[in-house]
């Protein structure tokens, strides 16, 4: 009983350390800097010329 528990617990420690390091890496590489941008960016098409340009008149903002 205890033998298998020790075995499983060591795996737990290993996974915990691994998950922690993974998260630290993600934070360091800036993946949490902007939580909204990437979600928006995927919606933006790169086919700029297809989008009609509207000219703003003076006083219209």
């Amino acid at each position, binding site marked *: 009983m*205890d033998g298998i528990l020790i075995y499983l617990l060591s795996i*737990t420690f290993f996974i915990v350390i691994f998950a*922690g390091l993974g*998260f*630290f890496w993600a*934070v360091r590489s800036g993946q*949490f800097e902007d939580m909204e941008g990437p979600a928006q960016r995927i919606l933006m098409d790169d086919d700029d010329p297809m989008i009609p340009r509207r000219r703003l008149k*003076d*006083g219209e*903002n």
Partner: protein
Amino acid sequence: MTGNCFHCGEPVPSGIDYSVVIQGEKRDMCCLGCEAVAQAIVDNGLEAYYQHRTALPQSARDLIPEELRKLDLYNHPEIQKSFVITPAEHLKQASLILEGITCAACVWLNERHLQQLPGVTDVMVNYSTHRARVTWDEREIDLARILREVQLLGYNAYPFNAKQQEDVRKKERQRDLRRIAVAGISMMQVMMLAVALYAGDYSGIEASTKDLLRYASLVLTLPVMLYAAIPFYKSAWRALQSGRMNMDVPVTLAIFVAFGGSLWMTAKGAGVVYYDAVCMFSLFLLTTRFLERNAREKSTEAAENLLRMVPAMATRLQDGGQQVVPVMELEAGDLILVKPGESIAADGSVTEGASSVDESLLTGESRPVPKEAGVAVIAGSLNLEGPLQVQVTGVGENTVIAGIIRMLDRAQAEKPRLAQLADRVAGHFTYGLLALAAVTALGWWLVDPAKVFAVTLSVLVVTCPCALSLAAPAAFAAAGSRLLKQGILLTRGHALETLSHVNHVVFDKTGTLTFGKPFLHQTVVLADLPASRCLAIAASLEQASEHPLAASFLCAVEPGALLPVEQAQNTPGKGVAGIIGGVRYTLGNRQLSPHTPEGDVAGVPEGATVVWLCDETRPLAAFALADELRPRAREAVEQLKAAGMRVTILSGDSRPAVNYIAAQLGVESLYWEQRPEDKLAVLKRFQQEGEVVAMVGDGVNDAPVLAGAQVSMAMGSGTDVARATSDIVLLTQNLVDVSRALETGRESIKIMGQNFVWAIGYNALAVPIAVFGYIPPWLAAIGMSVSSLVVVVNALRLR
């Protein structure tokens, strides 16, 4: 190698190898002290010091504590130049970033402490930006001393420049995220083991297995104790050190009691352990604080974006050559070259060249402003046409735009009354809570010593006043961020609270309800030419004119419709003339052409300007130009009336013009030909009748009224004076925002009220149950966290 120390200029002793990379080069240092100081300068983004310095500093060799030496640098006038202003003789003012602020109490602590220093005349700490504005008398105290005092309190203060604050914020955010991750991962594992332990209590478990699970939990809890929960210890230590109380004191106490007790049980091999409670408590507290901090930061971004419009580099003209330098290095009197398409880096006056400049940054008016030699330009505005040579008059903190940001900063430092009240209550509450915990512990020790530990822990955890102290700031931050999303910038804290009481909205007319510039209103054809042709001719003629009316013609036609004009001629005060397709046309007032008909043109609104287009023999068309209502003005007024507000127009304009606009909007309460002091008097009268007035305005003439009203809103296109004196800036210039802002104000007060009721109700209910021992510590942790989360989530409904 020069053999001299780059920092202090003293010879480098042989066999010494200290160096610092400055301005991209490795510089030799004579001693560890100089190395540390130079490194500190570089690390703080103050490398420019080495370019500005006019004398070498003392060698850092004999100064001992490194931290203090670092601060002394800030006394150097060359370094101070980038962040200190001199509002009056002997008075200095600086903006500082405070690191380590976790709650409103820290703000209060710093403010109080600095205020009692001799020589410090004014301290304001902004909770939402963690910036402090300090004013001091340079004869009595120096900046390093002030910074040192801040450090003694356990905080760090850095002089502010925009870039640096961003870095600090980013670092803090990453650290918070890492702490949350550690607490989260640990909690998941410890909870799993805890389930095994609890289940074991029911279905039987071997003592050795139980021991194993306890030790595993202990190891998994260590990262939380040693890393994730550190902010609580620090904050509590800080509070205790200064003999004050904040909510992190009971939090820290609870964590230590729970962990210490569990440790004891684990070593003894008997009893219940509370590692799960430690992890959960830390995780939930860290998360709520993180969410609250995020909401707060969002609402400050707009103000900082203004600052970033000023470029970081400029082209300096020196000794006949061009040189690209950081803006911080510019000094008053320098000549800089601004190429077309570039932003102007500093306030100054044009010495050479002619161009037009987009100053919409300050005025909101996107029409280019012509600039020629001798005219002043503002940092951050955009040069559109030709190169300009500008003599610098103000850089960095001394620019017009930085002045506006400081005003915003100061405005945000004012806390809403409700939030102040909550802070005070939470402070007293903490003392009460600690006393209660002590009494409980004593009571249970007399009744049942075995349960003292568990019950006291539950009381400490369950009563954490987090929900109470989060109630107001969370709602406030969420409301600010929602308003900002809609283009409404809240510049003063008290505004939200007052907004909910407003029952009378007063509008200025010109520039607020209307655009404040003439638009082509109507074309009346007087001959056989079609209106579009008349308009094309008129617009073509106006190309030569700089009169404000000309622009309204030009934007009424497509650029392609313009016709070539020969012999264009501009008669100031009358109009323009020119030959198009062999025919000579005139466009102007009655004095310009002999053919203009007598009398008024039918259908032209009162207060409009009429311009006549004639050819050589007859009048062709009349154009009525009038100030136009903003697109959604009527909707805005209707909404306000529907919400039961009184609406008044208070204008400096003539009676017919005001009547004309009021009739369109359906407003009955009108005041015309009002000078600024008259406007203020009218406002005071309203207020004496017990009304809470929101004033919406835009101009310099509105500034006193805006300042006098309980809540004031300025159009984003308004003058910066108006914007600085108002509580709210309508960035989108959409008048419907007025009622939106009022609505958000009412809602946020409602939410704050709910939050207070919840927080107080929860504590009133939970405390007695906990004191009598009916709440196990793990349930207490959940209860406390849920109560805080409810408050934050409830506030987030505002967004």
